[in-house]
């Protein structure tokens, strides 16, 4: 289960989502600018106040860290 916490105006979030789509990774998206519950969940669980945050099998990665995300998702290119 992959969750992406992002805001609509964040360029790194767009890059991250583009990358996931490119590799056919299904993900659930939470707009933390609007969704207060998701915002609090993200801040509490990840200890982060910055986006994007991606949750992959209960592991959190902050920012569009391509290498770490690829590793957790088993993406090779």
């Amino acid at each position, binding site marked *: 289960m992959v969750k992406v916490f992002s805001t609509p105006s964040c360029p790194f979030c767009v*890059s991250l989502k583009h990358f996931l789509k490119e590799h056919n990774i299904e993900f659930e998206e939470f707009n933390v600018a609007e969704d207060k519950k998701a915002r609090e969940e993200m801040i509490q669980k990840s200890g982060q106040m910055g986006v994007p945050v991606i949750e992959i099998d209960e592991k959190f990665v902050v920012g569009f860290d391509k*290498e770490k995300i690829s590793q957790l998702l088993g993406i090779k290119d």
Partner: protein
Amino acid sequence: MVYDLIIIGGGPAGITAGIYAGRQRLNTLLITKDFGGQVARKAVAIENYPGFEEISGLDLIQKFEKHLRKQKIDIERDEVIKIQKTPNKFLVQTQSKSKFESKTVIIASGADPRPLEIPGEKEFIGKGLSYCAVCDGALFPDKNVAVIGGGNSGFETAIFLAKIAKKIYILEYGPKVKADKVNQAMVEKISKVKILTNAASKKIQGDKFVNSLIYQDRKTGKEKTLSVDGVFVEIGSQPSTAFARDLVDFNERDEIKVDFESYQTKTPGLFAAGDVNVGRYKQIITACGEGAKAALAAYEYLQKL
């Protein structure tokens, strides 16, 4: 394979160079971490790019990227860590350990936000400290925040945050703010923005997240504490040029010296366009213009090989 041209960077300069190179049918590779650079992170709408009376940075860049992708050029999402020169070609090495070869290179890697270099800054990145208000600003509803930097980007960040935060402090190191008249007039109308001049940021404090910022009033020498949950750093940018160190000359700000007719650096076949070079005016339109000129100069250079 040896490319005709490698473009490093996916902001306005790199994208424009890519469009021109594609149209000249140069065998081109563009390497970039992300598209848009500083433009995509801009806090308020762009109102000085002809043809678009008002457009967000992200929207403009998406149009740029779409235009670029119409060209027959290769694109790699990666970060360049080193450029080397052999007698006939350049070797470009990336973070993911790929190596590419090319006859010419345009450096259009732009600039990164300049850090404060004060205690607490590194520890609280992503925990209340941010260099991207359009990304993280929405996480601070009804909170008190500080914007460090009284130039245009600081003021634009404050204007953006005014829609979200409760109270915004702008801290300017000098005795006067440097933002232009339009931005100053806009901020004047927002009562929840307070401007502090002669304010030298000293330390960012907190527990799990930021809870305060200590600054020194440079007039009185006294240290003061602001209770804030967010600190947005907007004190300018520094060029991303370290990977080219051996092949170019820098000015005192680490900007690459170029010949302004061809945008060529001291190394033949190596060009630098946009915010990364010593050019005085850092605008989207000027970066585009330089990208176009560098691509045409690279084309001309290749014809003579």
